[in-house]
C-alpha cells in the first residue's frame, strides 16, 4: 500500500528573525520524505492557522525563539480548532523552558524539541506520531 506523503507546515511565528533552526528542520523533513511548506518569518497565529487549513497539512511545526511561546502556541491551536482543523498535529521547538513545555503539552502541543535535538530525532518523531488526516 502506497503511503500518502505527509504534508508538514513549518511555521515561524513571532517577530524575531531566528530562522536558522526552522530552515534546517524544513530541509531535514523534506529530505526525510515529507512534503514541506515553509511559511517564512514573522507569521501571526492567524496566518499560520489559515495556511495550515488551506494547504491541508497533517502537522504544523512551530519554531519559536522569542520567548513568546506561551502566547503563540496556544493561539495557533485555538485558531486551528476554530477552523475545524483541530486534528492537525502541532509540534514545536525553540528556547522553551521545561515547565513551559509541560504546560504547552497539556494545552495540546504534541511535542516540544529544545536546543540539542537532532534533525534525525525530529524526522523520526514525525514518522512515528503524525498520521495522515482523514
Amino acid at each position: 500500500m502506497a503511503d500518502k506523503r505527509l504534508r508538514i507546515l513549518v511555521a515561524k511565528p513571532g517577530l524575531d528573525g531566528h530562522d536558522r533552526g526552522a530552515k534546517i528542520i524544513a530541509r531535514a523533513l523534506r529530505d526525510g520524505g515529507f512534503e514541506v511548506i515553509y511559511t517564512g518569518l514573522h507569521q501571526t497565529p492567524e496566518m499560520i492557522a489559515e495556511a495550515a487549513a488551506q494547504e491541508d497539512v497533517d502537522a504544523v511545526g512551530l519554531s519559536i525563539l522569542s520567548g513568546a511561546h506561551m502566547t503563540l502556541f496556544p493561539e495557533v491551536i485555538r485558531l486551528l480548532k476554530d477552523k475545524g482543523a483541530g486534528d492537525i498535529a502541532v509540534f514545536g521547538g525553540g528556547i522553551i523552558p521545561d515547565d513551559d513545555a509541560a504546560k504547552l503539552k497539556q494545552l495540546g502541543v504534541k511535542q516540544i524539541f529544545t536546543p540539542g535535538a537532532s534533525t534525525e530525532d525530529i524526522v523520526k518523531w514525525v514518522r512515528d506520531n503524525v498520521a495522515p488526516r482523514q
Partner: protein
Amino acid sequence: MSDKKKWLETSYRQSAERSSRFSTISDMELEPLYTPDDVAGSYDEALGHPGEFPYTRGVYGSMYRGRLWTMRQFAGFGLAEDTNARFHFLLGQGQDGLSTAFDMPTLMGYDADHERAQGEVGREGVAVSSIHDMLRLYDRIPLDRITTSMTVNCSASILLAMYLVVAERQGVSWDKVGGTIQNDMLKEFIAQKEWICPPRPSLRIVTDMIEFCARNAPRFHPVSISGYHIREAGSTAVQELAFTIADGICYVDEAVKRGLKVDDFAPRFSFFWNLHNDFLEEVAKLRAARRMWARIMRDRFGAKNPRSMMLRAHAQTAGASLTAQQPLNNVVRVALQAFAGVLGGVQSLHTNSMDETLALPTEQAVMVALRTQQVIAEETGVTNTVDPLGGSYAVEALTDRMEREAMQYIRQIDELGGMVHAIDIGFPQREIAEAAFHYQRQLEQGIKSVVGMNKYDVPEEIPIPTLKIDPAIEERQIQRVRKIKRERNSIAVKDALRQVSQACRSGANLMNPICEAVRRDATVGEICDIFRTEFGVYTDPGWI
C-alpha cells in the same frame, strides 16, 4: 622536494593521524604544519607594525598597553526602569560602556499596544515606544561621558532621534554625544531578518543617518557593519568576513553617491564580529578583516585619512555556540572565544552569559561574563604585548587564506551587481543556509563535536537559575503608551508625522523630521507606520 614535504613523509608520518581530515569549525581544511614558506608577502606589505597600514596587527600602535578594550555588556529586558537598573549595576561593576537590547516590538517598529506585540513586550529586550521610555532608560546616565551602543536596525532612525532628544533634555549638545547604533540593514536581509521596508528604501534611511551624523553628531557611529548575525545564522567564518565587508562597500558607495566625501564619514564606520569556538580561525578572521578594509578603503575608494582605513570593531562571543546542556560549560566557551577576540585585537567586547541559551541572563551570570573579560585583561598578561600572535606561521597563513577566499566572494558579489542585487536573488542567504545545514549534518554524524551535547552528555543535569520576565510588564507598557497617545497634543503630532511622510516622498533627509516627531511624543510604531505606507513592506521570500 621542499623541506616541508620531506618532513611530512618522514617525521610526521612516523605515527598514524587520529583523523583522516582536520578542519576548522567552518570546515576549512588545515595542513598539519605551517612554515615560513606558507606565508606570503613582505612584512611591511602584509602586516606592517600595529597602528600602521594595512593594520593587520592592530589599528592602534600601543593597543592594550595604551588602553584596554571597552567592556560593553549588552543588556535590556522588561520596562525601561528595569534595564536602567541593570545599566547602573553594570557600571558599578567596572563596565565602561553601555549596550542596549530592545524588545522585538521596538526592533520591528510596533508599539506595545499593537496586536503584533502580543506576548513579546519586554521579553528579549527593553520595551521603548516613546521618548518617555527612552528618558527612563537613560535616567542618571550622562550621555556626554558614557558611550552607548544600541542594537536596533529597521527602526534605528527613531531610536537615534530619541537618544539625541534625551541628550538635549540632559543639556548635552549633539556634538558631544558618542555612541554606536547598529543600523546595518543589509545584514538584516541576509541574516538577522528584522525589517520593515524592502532593501532599497531601507538603505536610503541608513544613508540618511550616515549623512545626518556626519553633519550633526560627528562623534556618533551611525552604522555598525555586522558579521555577528551572519555567523549566528550559520555561516562560515569566511562568509561572515566576506558578506560583512561587502555590506561595508555598499554603504560607502551609497554615501559617496549622496555627495559625501569618503573621509568625511568613513572614520565613523565601525564593525561588529562574532567570536566563535575555533580559536585560530577567529584570530585570523579579525586580522584579515582589518587588512581587507584598509586596502579596500585606500585602493577602491581613494580614502586619504588613515582613520577611514582603520577597521575598529566590537565583538561578541557566539550565542549559537552555547549549549542548553551542562550550561556551566558555557563559561569556558565564552572565555576562550573572548580570548580569541583579545588576541585578534578588538576595541570593544561583549561576553555572553552562561544561561543565554535558556533565557535572558541573570545578574549573577552577567557578572561572571564581565569578570571573564576582567580576568583576561588583568590576569593573563596577554595585554602586555601588542599582537602577540603576529608572525605565527599558522596564524599568518590562515589570515592570508581568509582574505583570499573572502575576496573571491566579494568579486562574485561585484559581478552580481553589488550586495543589494545579491540579496534580491538570495545569494548570501542561500550560501549561509547551505553552510548551516552542512554543519548540522557534521554534528549529527559526529564529525564535529559539541561537548555535553553530542559528546559527553549526562542523563541527569543540574539546572541553573534563569531570569523570568513578569508577564504583567506587557500590560503596564500598553497602558503607558495608551496614556501618552491620549494626553499629548494630537494636532502637533499629526503635523510632525506629516513632515516625516513628506520627507519620505521628497527624498529630504528624514532625521530632522523624525527628531521633531519624537519631541512631540510620536511613537516608534507611528513613525514606522509611515515607512510602511510610504515605502511598502518587505516579506520573507522563505527560501529553504
